[in-house]
């Protein structure tokens, strides 16, 4: 066995476990004496709780407890928190209403948690929940953001006009001045549709309490178990951190929705002590629709100012962001600092000004979902750029090229300092792969068959590698976003990597091991990756924002440097040479210029035998840790091209070709990266063509199952043509930029730009379902008839 190199398309080590049913998910965990929780949820979008009568439910044989918000309050259990403070334009802090894990006095969305029934088995808990009588005083629902800000109905007393914040970024005066001298202004109204995350594995939790050691254990579907422990300890007050262990075992997809600390896991771990039994809860799919934090839901008016040649002078954006009924863990940051700093796109825009109102409505909380703010920004930029090019009669690729950032580093007017990129290179390669030259011919062929063919571009950029701690701290984040790693080399030379990152589909067990194998020369099957357990792994920040490569692996890289340095010292004693003369290459420590060398495994063994040196000179053992704090965000960027055909008779859109050229910097495992791109595009296409969460005027979620909420399927997608360009990221030791969110960020504007190209007008919103497209076709037909 030899080392596995960086850049090799190694098959995923974890897949055998997953595809043979050997994965250990939270719902697979069963503790002795385990009981089951069922949540009584509000059927009303907005109501006071006049009384809760649980007498009949408690009398059901097998019921152990029925607990409410009053019990939480009596035990002084704190509310759920929002960890990112946003300030209003006038400098005052945002208005965050209390968010108890079980409602106290009022419910604010359909699915809000009113009580929990804990019973011997799930069926008993569920049946007994039917007997909990809640007397509601129904209040008006507020679903529409424009209606919310009138303040006719107040959701949280702290925010009388239901506005959480009114925030801005950029230079208003400079932007206004640029608009004043513009030769052309393009205006666009944009709705970014609300999405339900739909991870394959629904959320679940098992709370356990050992009265002997006063130790709590929470098994939960989390992307960041240490952050969950920190919040549950320091803010919610379940137990001090050393008395609370949080384990996030195999997790079946998150897409952001499992970053947050939710009511259900809080209640399970608290109730475990209360009832003296382990308490398990697993969401059914309807609960996931109702209570997983939703994504997106922006309404935006954007204006782009240009000079006579089509050079962009300024961008002005006004966005209303629906935050739902409560502020989820990071919800405040998504439409602000994860959004507006990306509004410069790949373009050199001298002035940008963006205003964002975060608004409460009586709907499920909205938080980060794959891309988190950056898809919303990219949709604004790539739609308005495309429309501007059309209005000016310019080729959309030429228009983009004219405005591309060309010199790096590039300081945008909205915080970000782009460090490296070659946007023209990605565009050139994508145009070649997509055979743009012959698009006109293909369009004419489609027209002969009575079909409308369109092509759409998306030259996206995102900020990943989240995030430099000092930078996010200055913007209001409650914690820094560094990452940790520990490399434990065993006496026989096998290696355990303990990482604060968390894998829930990203293939860390493979890529992280691949890095270690390449650097230490140890075969990949002798490297194991340990994550997701606060008792095993040092504090870490978890996985989201495409950060595990750029930040998590950089921490591993730093720890590997230390392992090699220590190994050199051990080798020096054994080989009786100076540590300065030891070289480490291809898995061997060698005295420079001699044939004296030791294999990595031999050095590891010597480090533990420790006969060749005294502990005073050199500590025995071979184990090193590192905390890596990035110095900048990373900036993956690329060009996606969607080519599609619309059948005007039925409104059915068929994606014929998809070209993706991404610059992710250096790539560890191209197969895993390509998989991430495929999945991201599928989710982006889902948003553009199929998905949309809808509440009716009474705040009832009418898309609460797969009967009414359409997810993308294989036959909605073409075979993707995926290519890469490489400009290494200069800010981290591996030159990695991150790839997890790119597809979901790039895809929606590519699809809508292609549809609007085919239609010949801009009037279509996401999801562009066959019905919506058919209606849009009628409009185009009328327009032509009128002409």
């Amino acid at each position, binding site marked *: 066995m030899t080392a596995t190199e960086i850049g090799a398309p190694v098959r995923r080590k974890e897949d055998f476990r997953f595809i043979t049913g050997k994965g250990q998910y939270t719902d697979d965990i069963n503790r002795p004496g385990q009981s089951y929780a069922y949540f*009584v*949820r*509000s*059927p*009303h*979008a907005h109501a006071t709780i006049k009384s809760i009568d649980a007498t009949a439910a408690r009398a059901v044989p097998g019921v152990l407890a029925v607990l409410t918000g009053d019990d939480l309050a009596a035990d002084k259990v704190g509310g759920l928190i929002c960890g990112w403070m946003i300030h209003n334009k006038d400098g005052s802090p945002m208005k965050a209403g209390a968010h108890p894990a079980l409602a106290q006095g009022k419910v604010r969305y*359909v699915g809000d948690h009113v009580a929990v029934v804990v019973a011997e088995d799930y069926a008993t808990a*569920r049946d007994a*929940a*039917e*007997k*909990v*009588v809640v007397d509601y005083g129904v209040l008006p629902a507020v679903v529409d953001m424009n209606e919310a800000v009138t303040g006719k109905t107040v959701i949280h007393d702290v925010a009388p006009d239901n506005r959480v914040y009114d925030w801005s970024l950029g230079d208003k005066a400079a932007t206004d001045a640029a608009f004043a001298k513009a030769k052309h202004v393009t205006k666009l109204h944009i709705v970014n549709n609300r999405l339900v995350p739909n991870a394959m594995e629904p959320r679940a939790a098992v709370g356990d309490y050992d009265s002997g050691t006063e130790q709590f254990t929470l098994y939960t579907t989390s992307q960041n178990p240490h952050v969950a422990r920190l919040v549950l300890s320091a803010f919610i007050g379940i137990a001090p951190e050393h008395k609370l262990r949080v384990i996030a075992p195999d997790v079946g997809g998150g897409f952001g929705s499992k970053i947050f600390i939710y009511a259900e896991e809080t209640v399970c771990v608290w109730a475990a002590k209360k009832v003296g039994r382990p308490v398990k809860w697993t969401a059914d799919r*309807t609960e996931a*629709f*109702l209570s997983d934090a939703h994504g997106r839901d922006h309404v935006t008016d954007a204006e782009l100012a240009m000079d006579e040649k089509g050079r962009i002078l300024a961008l002005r954006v006004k966005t209303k962001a629906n935050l739902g009924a409560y502020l989820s863990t990071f919800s405040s940051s998504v439409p602000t600092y994860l959004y507006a700093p990306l509004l410069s796109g790949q373009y050199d825009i001298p002035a940008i000004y963006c205003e964002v109102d975060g608004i409460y409505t009586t709907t499920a909380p909205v938080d980060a979902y794959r891309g988190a703010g950056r898809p919303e920004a990219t949709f604004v930029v790539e739609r308005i750029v495309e429309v501007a090019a059309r209005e000016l009669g310019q080729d959309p690729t030429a228009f983009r090229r004219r405005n591309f950032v060309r010199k790096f580093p590039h300081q945008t007017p909205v915080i970000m300092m782009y460090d490296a990129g070659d946007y023209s290179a990605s565009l050139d390669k994508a145009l070649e792969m997509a055979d743009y030259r012959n698009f006109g011919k293909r369009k004419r062929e489609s027209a002969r068959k009575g079909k409308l063919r369109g092509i759409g571009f998306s030259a996206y950029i995102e900020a990943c590698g989240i995030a430099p701690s000092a930078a996010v701290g200055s913007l209001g984040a409650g914690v820094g976003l560094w990452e940790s790693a520990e490399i434990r080399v065993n006496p026989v030379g096998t290696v355990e990597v303990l990482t604060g990152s968390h894998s829930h589909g990203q293939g860390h067990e493979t890529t992280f091991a691949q890095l270690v194998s390449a650097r230490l020369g140890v075969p990949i099957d002798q490297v194991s990756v340990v994550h997701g357990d606060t008792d095993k792994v040092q504090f870490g920040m978890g996985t989201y924002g495409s950060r595990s490569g750029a930040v998590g692996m950089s921490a591993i890289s730093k720890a590997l440097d230390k392992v090699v340095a220590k190994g050199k010292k051990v080798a020096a004693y054994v080989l009786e040479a100076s540590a300065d003369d030891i070289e480490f290459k291809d898995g061997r420590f060698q005295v420079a210029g001699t044939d004296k060398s030791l294999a990595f495994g031999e050095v590891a063994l010597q480090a533990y035998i420790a006969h060749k040196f005294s502990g005073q000179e050199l500590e025995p053992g071979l184990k090193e840790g590192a905390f890596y704090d990035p110095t900048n965000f990373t900036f993956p960027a690329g060009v996606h091209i969607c080519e599609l055909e619309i059948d005007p008779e039925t409104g059915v859109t068929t994606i014929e070709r998809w070209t993706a050229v991404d610059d992710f910097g250096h790539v560890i495992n191209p197969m895993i990266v390509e998989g991430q791109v495929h999945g991201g595009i599928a989710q982006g296409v889902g948003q553009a063509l199929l998905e949309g969460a809808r509440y*009716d005027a*009474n705040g*009832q*979620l*009418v*898309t*609460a*199952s797969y*009967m*009414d909420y359409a997810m993308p399927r294989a036959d909605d997608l073409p075979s993707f043509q995926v290519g890469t360009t490489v400009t290494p990221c200069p800010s981290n030791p591996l030159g990695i930029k991150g790839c997890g969110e790119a597809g979901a960020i790039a895809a929606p504007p590519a699809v809508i730009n292609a549809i609007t190209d085919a239609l010949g007008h801009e009037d279509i919103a996401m999801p562009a379902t066959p019905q919506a497209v058919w209606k849009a076709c009628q409009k185009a037909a009328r327009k032509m008839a009128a002409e």
Partner: protein
Amino acid sequence: MAMTMNGDFVLPADKATVWAKLNDPDVLRVCIPGCQSLEKTSDTSFQATAKVKVGPVGATFKGKVNLTDIDAPNGYRISGEGEGGVAGFAKGGAVVKLEEVEGGTKLTYDVEAQIGGKLAQLGGRLVNGVAKKMADEFFANFAKAVSPAQA
């Protein structure tokens, strides 16, 4: 979730008989699918309990039923509000009109209802289907109750 439903039925009885039966709790109790109890609480109101099953959701609804806009014997508005616990709630009403026609009395109904909670989450296709079936069942039962053989 808003739900609307309308239709008409020709009943083999005269208008006065149909009107009387429409106001008779014993008749209504037998005719309403799943109805477990229906007690008159005043001349124009009832207290009702009904067991309803929609797809995977089964629930016992408890609620009040009121009669308004009474125009004897031509019609009324029947409205109600019911809580089904974990299953959700339903509220709404139906405008019922009677008209003499050849062979009996034509009953026209126009339902407008709001449903919430788990019932709404099942989606319109399932709920509307069940509601239509229940309406059909009710009128089939009611037709039997007013037919001369029964009267």
